[in-house]
């Protein structure tokens, strides 16, 4: 079945069954391997992409459900101002350990800040709690989101760091 998708600002035609999860359409048909496979059941968030700005788990979103929605993957995160800020903060704070979860983390953070430009601590935790990080980079995820909000490089960079106070 041929389907037209709007991905990272471009229209792409894919030939795939309607029940194929968007994750595998992106990874296999469109060679966008930024979104990751972690659980396949909406439990880990590694596959998170944006559909019209909303964070969705692409592993549990069939191709047929995408419709005309604009898809943003990590590869296209720089197209929005919020996306740029978040990605820059992620580099500044050196968030990744293994890095496998980070594309999903970043997309969830972008969705959060697009809807709520000044989230509080509890709102950050709530919005990010669908994204597992097996390595435990959570302190820096919080720090990077705060940096994206305030524009200030707040130090998680010293031991004790961001939560020392």
């Amino acid at each position, binding site marked *: 079945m041929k389907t037209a998708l709007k991905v990272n600002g471009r229209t792409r035609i894919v030939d795939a069954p309607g029940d194929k999860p968007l994750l595998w359409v992106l990874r296999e048909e469109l060679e966008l391997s930024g979104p990751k496979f972690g659980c396949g*059941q909406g439990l880990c968030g590694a596959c998170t992409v944006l559909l019209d700005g909303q964070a969705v788990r692409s592993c549990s979103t069939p191709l047929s459900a995408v419709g005309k929605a604009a898809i943003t993957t990590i590869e296209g995160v720089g197209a929005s101002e919020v996306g740029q800020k978040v990605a820059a903060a992620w*580099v500044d704070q050196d968030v990744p350990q293994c890095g496998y979860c980070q594309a999903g983390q970043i997309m969830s953070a972008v969705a959060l800040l697009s809807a709520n430009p000044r989230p509080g601590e509890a709102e950050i935790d709530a919005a990010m709690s669908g994204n597992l990080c097996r390595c*435990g980079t959570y302190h820096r995820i919080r720090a990077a989101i705060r940096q994206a909000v305030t524009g200030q490089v707040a130090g998680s960079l010293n*031991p*004790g760091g961001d939560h020392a106070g």
Partner: protein
Amino acid sequence: MPAETDRRFVLKALLGAGGALVFDIELALGAAPAAPAAAGEPAARLNAFVRLHPDNSVTITAKNPEIGQGIKTMLPMLIAEELDVAWEAVKIEQAVADQALFAPQFAGGSMATPLNWLPMRQAGAAARAMILAAAAQEWSLPVAELSTLAGDVLHVGSARRAPYAAFAAGAVRQAVPAATALKLKDPADFTIIGKPTKGVDTPAIVAGKPLFGIDTRLPGMLHAALLTPPVRGAVLKSHDAAAALARPGVRKVVALTRLGEADAPVDALAVVADSWWTASEARKALQVEWDAEGRDRHSDASFAAAARTAHEGRPQAVVLAKGDAATALAGAARRLAATYTYPFVSHATLEPQNCTALFHAGKLELWAPTQMPGGGQDLLAKTFGLAPADITVHITRSGGGFGRRLQNDYMVLAAAIAREVPGRPVKLLLDRQEDFKLDFFRAAGFHRFEAGLDADGRLVALRDHLVTFGAKGKPGRGADLPANLVPADLVDHVDLGQTVLETNIPLGWLRAPGSNALAFASQGFLDEVAEAAGLTLPDLMLQLLGTGRLIPPPAGGRGPGFHTGRAAGVIREVLRLSGWSGARKGRGFGFYFSHNGYFAAVADVAKGEAGIRVERVWIGGDIGNTIINPLNAEQQIRGSVIEGMGHVLSGLKVPVDGGAIGVANFDSYPLPRIDAVPPIEIGMVRSDFPPTGLGEPAMPPAIAAIANAISSLTGQRLRSLPYAES
């Protein structure tokens, strides 16, 4: 040929201690220049690790697998420091597996720092010495009058300065200096070591670039999904693949049976298709019958019953008999006894196991997220009857390791599938359920402790009988009771023994193997002992540690041993950091020594709306005189604490019933999430010892501190992990 001699020497060093890890690694620095540079490559190859480019940038080879421990950044930092170049001028390239050239290439045991601290710096220093020798020739000056600064050669006398690249051609012709002739930097002059340095792949990760094993993409590549029996180790009896093969896109169904020993004992069916999704879905159409005979009798209930019976008798094997524990216990003024238990635990790397393999003209090429590429090469050679030289392993970034990828079963499975489609690369990817099923688990265990206190409340006798798991009376990986269980070294009369139960569940090393479970059990019991003696656990530990001295490792053990002064130092540091002022409800303490690292932790827990949560953790550590990359050190320590929280409080356990595991995905294996994560404060003690590793030793004491804090909060001793609200 000197290069050949060097290679042989390194191999000997590697295999020296019967496969055991050795600290003295000598690099075959002479071997690399003999290797021709790649065609058209303008770079000068000074040794296996350093290539100098005409624009004066440098490519440094990162030899070890990167699994999130930061090694791809850290080892090149050591080389760049002694090469004396600016970090900004360094490009990093991941090595392929070639232990003859690079010396050991593995991620495990927190060994990369102690093994490579000297050799990597020597690799940089040797390249620098060759550049200096070339400059001295070119300028007709004594080499002693030359110095270097950030990638330039300097002659102060004549105010001459030129970039390294100007001497590249001469440098490659220089004799490779002997390691002993190299002068390494005074640590006071370090400009890279000790500086917070971001991960070299961070920008690529944030940009979503393909870096991981799962991202491997090759022309003509096929995809494979795996189906294994519910009962681990069951045998394939019969199958019918017709319906699966009839699906569009499905190429083949491969029956994998008896693929060799140890690391790949699984029977499985693999569906090979044009897309992984197609392959994965087609598994549903497979008709299959497994024979679980003899494997399905294992269950948690039978394990617990066997452990109870074992605890009533003597251990199968004595681990340590020191003094006369029986008499000391009999004559003790006060005796305590308790049983501590913990479950099987899974690695659950976020990137499921995967590997891409290509069989072509009798040669095998793999792209593998593995912690042990050389081990994988050996295993494949044995399994498929190939010469190791005919097996190329490309080391991809790993989406987490934690010890899972020390086992290379998935490389064997991928190669076996690829053998059926020669000339086509095949990527095998396990889905989450299969990834859990095929894990090599942290062993469950049952400890029966006894302690005797004298009239003054001093701990004079200690006994521990561990009922553990393994085969044929031998404990599995990371499942044994070591003779240096903390605090056996510090007590006069000690009996340690173990009994091994059989299980069909394979065992593997999980981050801080052994110690992650032993710390919970032994520091928990010691907390009870302290209470009985009217002390807090840190007070008891400080009393037991006594004056600072070095206790050598037990017979057959490796490493420099246990220094009581360093242990006391980190305990004092964490007490200071946490503002410790004695026992307090909901506060717990834990100390452990593992992987040559000394760590102590204090944790506060409280009852919240959704049950007990960790409010704050303080952790003090000593890994020697240098923290090579403080930015990464902080990550490793926090990650260890968070993983430890998972063991105690998140409900992580792998139940076994009828030989099958009771975990299928992250809903039944609830890893800690961001909303459970407390502030974690770190204090590092710099002691005057060479640096050791940091991937593991922070986790065991964190587990103990959190568990002891829960005991303190509830007033009920937590003797079984994970904590479950009663």
